[in-house]
């Protein structure tokens, strides 16, 4: 198992190198002269030249790249132009907000999609099977920001049961003392039930938006792979041996059917991390996505670059974890390794 983990980790390194090169190239692609851009419209020639030296862009490309990698190794992602703060600090403080939202959305989605897919596969032609099919077809066509707005309209404006879509916590509450940065966990640690409920309320709609978004691919994959497994010979043998339908489905079919679903999770994460940006914009969620969007509008490039890099590194790590999880579920992968 350790061998497998090491091997997979080694495979992730070229991806990480690629990610660093691409984010570096993205800065180089900045339209026009970056020095003139950073100096502002009123800068003199000397000032621009000074900034050119300060930024290091008078050096050859390879030297600049070396400097960029050196900065990254020290955890330095540059400073935001509009706030003047280091980008790395800002991303670190905002990351838990995004992570809490994404993880909760994905959990809800898995808890609904997997049983739905299994039920649809074991009862073909039933109402739930048709529901599953409609959900999976409609779900992939729904723009995630549109779903979010519809939910806001119904649950906030019409029914009045959801709080206003304005961030992580109602202004009447102060955030719990920071331990993990996850409001749900921190408020439990502080034994503050009110704050826990308040932050849960704020979380429900955005998390539901993300869940609806990722429901479709997971349910579709679960259904398809469950159907394939149920038609296989070892399931037929298990049935013929007189095992109860429950045992056949849960112990025999489910574990094998989960393998392709775990693989799909990689793709789901790719979409989910992107959708996260849009959902954060809709719900004024103070995560790294809205940080990047604000910076984009202000043409402030360092935060955008830091954001793209952070997201890509997280995505590479998530894929690595998925591969390792795959090895845990499927003994064959371990033997091959």
């Amino acid at each position, binding site marked *: 198992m350790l061998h497998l983990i090491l091997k997979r980790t080694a495979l992730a390194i070229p991806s990480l190198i690629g990610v660093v090169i691409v984010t570096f190239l993205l800065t180089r692609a900045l339209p026009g002269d970056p020095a003139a851009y950073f100096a502002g419209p009123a800068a003199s020639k000397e000032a621009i030249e000074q900034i050119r030296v300060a930024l290091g862009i008078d050096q050859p490309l390879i030297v600049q790249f070396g400097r960029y990698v050196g900065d990254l190794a020290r955890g330095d992602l540059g400073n935001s132009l509009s706030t003047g703060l280091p980008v790395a600090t800002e991303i670190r403080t905002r990351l838990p907000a995004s992570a809490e939202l994404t993880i909760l959305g994905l959990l809800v989605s898995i808890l609904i999609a997997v049983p739905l897919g299994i039920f649809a596969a074991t009862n073909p032609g039933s109402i739930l099977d048709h529901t599953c099919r409609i959900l999976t077809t409609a779900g992939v066509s729904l723009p995630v920001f549109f779903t979010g707005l519809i939910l806001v309209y119904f649950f906030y404006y019409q029914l009045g049961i959801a709080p206003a879509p304005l961030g992580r916590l109602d202004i009447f509450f102060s955030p719990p003392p920071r331990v993990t940065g996850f409001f749900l966990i921190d408020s439990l640690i502080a034994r503050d039930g009110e704050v826990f409920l308040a932050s849960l309320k704020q979380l429900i709609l955005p998390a539901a938006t993300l869940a609806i978004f990722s429901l479709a691919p997971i349910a579709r994959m679960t259904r398809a792979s469950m159907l394939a497994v149920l038609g296989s010979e070892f399931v037929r043998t298990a049935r013929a041996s007189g095992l109860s339908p429950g045992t056949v489905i849960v112990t025999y079919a489910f574990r094998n059917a989960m393998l392709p679903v775990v693989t799909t999770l990689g793709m789901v994460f790719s979409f989910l991390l992107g959708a996260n940006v849009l959902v954060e914009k809709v719900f004024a969620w103070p995560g790294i996505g809205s940080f990047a969007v604000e910076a984009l509008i202000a043409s402030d490039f360092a935060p955008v670059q830091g954001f793209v890099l952070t997201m*890509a590194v997280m995505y590479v790590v998530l894929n690595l974890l998925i591969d390792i999880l795959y090895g845990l579920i499927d003994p064959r992968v371990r033997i091959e390794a």
Partner: protein
Amino acid sequence: MSDTTAAPSAPTHGMGAILRHAQYVIRENKVTGFAFGLFVIILLAALFGPHIVPYDPLASNTSAALQAPSARHWFGTDQLGRDVFSRVVVATRLDFAIAIFSVVLVFLMGGLAGVAAGFFGGWTDRIVSRIADTIMAFPLFVLAMGIVAALGNTVENIVLATAIVNFPLYARIARAEANVRREAGFVQAARLSGNGEMRILLGHILPNIMPIMVVQMSLTMGYAILNAAGLSFIGLGVRPPTPEWGIMVAEGAAFMVSGEWWIAFFPGLGLMMAVFCFNLLGDGLRDIIDPQRRT
């Protein structure tokens, strides 16, 4: 190559059989027929939109601002009194054009690179696969944001970014399809009759994988529309007051909490229907061209 179109009388080959099969698929599968009807509507709106709408999509009229849908304004009016229906219809052309151009662009980049990688193997393959892997290491929408931010905030760059993030998909499919054909009988025959490798690639391999690529292009159209609308929703590319579905949803978002749902709802609905249409159409097209892959 010439005999694929020259035999309309033969029932099992050629265009006649494809058309009859297409008719069969549309008749058997009502959903594909519906998607095709929707596609015709979208196409008409994209072509003639600006000429058939009742109001000027840019003309504001503050005395008629924020009106709910009525017989006068089918989809209501927005905060500046502009007719939402006219704006939604006129926006079709821009959204459609962004999607079409990005899909054609990614076909030219990814499709050709993938065919070359699968056919030549070796270094070509390694370079193309490495580029595809690197793009795949990013969450796609995030990479698209980064590309637009770096290259400049224009509609052209939205098209380019959408094409780039789809590159791996096209490159991989084209590569796999070209790879299984590199030693096929017709390729060897072409080689023996003295054709150069480039000529075989473009004249023999590429036409053979075109059907699969066309299905892929149709399936990607929906994603391309979503991606572009998402980028303009966060304020990239298209600028107000240009009518475009993503930016219209963004403009209407603030009014959702005060009950003026129609400003964001109808452009969002247009977006949804377009994506829905292309996804269904892609599935239907796959049934027609490549029945074995049916799911």
